[in-house]
């Protein structure tokens, strides 16, 4: 199977869906780039190149650059969605969501329910997440709990190139608003990605590694980290199962509970401050429905309750790192 990067996988998904369905449009800041400039338009394709080349193929009526007006971007997308389009809107860094959050959680997410099931809002919000780029407190957040808590939103966190393509295609064909969280640190990671279109249903976790002694649940960019620690622990004879839920909403509760039923031990690894996080969300699930399986406390490896610091050494310490993940695993195994 051809190897492609996470970035290419997303780009391919967008391109294939745009070819398939003329209602799919892309809008956001610099998704084309160069509009109104003295030089060439369409040569940018997003600050990290994810929408590269789409303007050239589909033109200005399908790939729309916008002013820096995120509320209007999201509103334009949801208004277009309820009237027949399938927009893919970009909020460049997820950190910017605070200027347009109303249009997401009070508007697009609520239309279907609030209007008694009579509206459908098929739109995707693409956004980049995560620390590790030394980009400081306002360009490094993850914020998936913010979306996960909102009824009416579906929330996707692909951890690898294959999933990124299949989940994006599903997101575009889905009839609800979907927040699609792209990990900056994963853009250049490669994997086997089929050329043809395929979808990965939402709410179906992937068992990224099978194991017996301990369950890791990890999201997006934390999945490769969890796998690396699992690998290291295997050398010590510890068998770790790694679950990648792929979507935080809907969440594949069964997959998590089944794994904990088998292992009796759980560590959640999540790039987020700890309070009201996915780490606590999973703990809430398992300490209720999986309580009888538990042989040890549930541990969370998260970021501290701080903004993302700029200095590289502080940022590295801020992220759930192998040392902290391993320590949590050992603590859970010891009890």
């Amino acid at each position, binding site marked *: 199977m051809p190897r492609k990067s996470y970035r290419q996988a997303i780009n391919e998904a967008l391109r294939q869906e745009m070819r398939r369905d003329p209602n799919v*449009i892309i809008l956001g800041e610099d998704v084309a780039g160069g509009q109104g400039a003295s030089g060439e338009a369409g040569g940018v394709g997003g600050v990290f190149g994810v929408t590269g080349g789409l303007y050239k193929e589909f033109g200005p*009526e399908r790939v*729309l650059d*916008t*002013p820096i*007006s995120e*509320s*209007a*971007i*999201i*509103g*334009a*997308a*949801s*208004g*277009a*969605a*309820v*009237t*027949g*389009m399938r*927009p893919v809107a970009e909020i460049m860094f997820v950190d910017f969501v605070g200027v347009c959050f*109303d*249009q997401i959680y*009070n*508007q697009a997410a609520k*239309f*279907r*329910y*609030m*209007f*008694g*099931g*009579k*509206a*459908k809002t098929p739109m995707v919000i693409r956004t980049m997440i995560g620390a590790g780029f030394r980009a400081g407190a306002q360009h490094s957040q993850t914020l998936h709990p913010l979306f996960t808590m909102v*009824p*009416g*939103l*579906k929330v996707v966190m692909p951890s690898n190139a294959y999933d990124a393509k299949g989940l994006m295609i599903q997101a575009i064909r*889905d*009839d*609800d608003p979907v927040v699609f969280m792209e990990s900056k640190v994963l853009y250049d990671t490669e994997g086997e990605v089929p050329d043809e279109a395929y979808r990965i*249903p939402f709410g179906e976790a992937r068992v990224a590694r099978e194991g017996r002694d301990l369950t890791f649940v990890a999201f997006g960019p934390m999945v490769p980290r969890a796998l690396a620690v699992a690998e290291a622990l295997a050398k010590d004879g510890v068998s770790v199962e790694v679950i990648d839920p792929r979507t935080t909403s809907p969440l594949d509760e069964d997959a998590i509970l089944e794994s904990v039923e088998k292992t009796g031990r759980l560590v959640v690894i999540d790039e987020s401050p700890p309070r009201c996080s996915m780490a606590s969300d999973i703990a809430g699930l398992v300490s209720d429905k999986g309580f009888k399986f538990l042989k040890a406390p549930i541990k969370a490896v998260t970021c501290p309750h701080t903004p993302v610091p700029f200095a590289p050494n502080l940022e590295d310490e801020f992220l759930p790192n192998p040392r902290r993940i391993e320590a949590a695993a050992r603590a859970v195994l010891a009890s």
Partner: protein
Amino acid sequence: MQLSREDLKRAYERMFTIRAFEERVDKEFALGNIPGFAHVYLGQEAAGVGVCFDLTDDDYIGSTHRGHGHCIAKGCDVKGMMLEIMGKAGGLCGGKGGSMHIADMTKGMLGANAIVGGSPPIAVGAALTQKLKKTGRVAVAFSGDGASNQGTTFEALNMAVVLGAPAIFAFENNGYGEHTAASYAVGAPSIAERARSFGMPAEVVDGSDFFAVREAMGRALERGRAGEGPYALEIVCSRFLGHFVGDPQAYRLPEELAQARANDPLPRFRKGVTETGLLEDADLDAIEAQVLALIEEAVAAGLAAPQPALSTLEQDVYVRY
């Protein structure tokens, strides 16, 4: 632009339906038959009807917390509205929306909106669809004077210009955002001028004159249908009652309220069409009687309707598969 007798009757029928509906809402609210908040549209009927008069079901509007009038003007079913406002099964949103969230996609009504400034960005999106699909249709964003100060509204103005979307911004300046006067909260000398400075044509229009509103809207529509971009109207009007049902309005002097009633758009319309002989008083009286019967029926249906089934509580959050 001269309207036929049938058109004139339709205009009056719409305005009077709003009038009668809202007066009844006010009354049923006081009787405890309507839960929650209600913001009635009394006094602003000519604005909503004038704006929506030449729209089709394929044109869209986005509305506000004060949305009943817009719904009726856009052709929503009055009984479905009353049931919705009473929180009953069979309401336009199954009782899950309520007064501030009535929507009807089949009528191009994108929803009342309880967030001030919530609708304009959405209307730009609906307008964008029309542009991309080359339908010649438009989308209207109703906003109040208060909403004209919300950042989302400003962004929508600029976005519509940049995308060349056929969005029409109908600013209903009724002088107040809740209990604060527009003269205080709108720092600009004029809402229309401010909109114009974003790069679109804009005009101020007398909101108690149905004909003036409709004509101004005609210019906006002409531009929109021709694919030439957005337009803004500042429709100066007055709300007869308080911000919500129950607001004692100590901040408005009796003279101001009297002045508002003196400009009542309905008698003004009646006077205009009867004096010029276009319609007879009897025509209008017949419409009123018919509308009142309809409202009566809607209220009776609303009172009789069951509450929504509890099984609907968790329905329609999103598609499940």
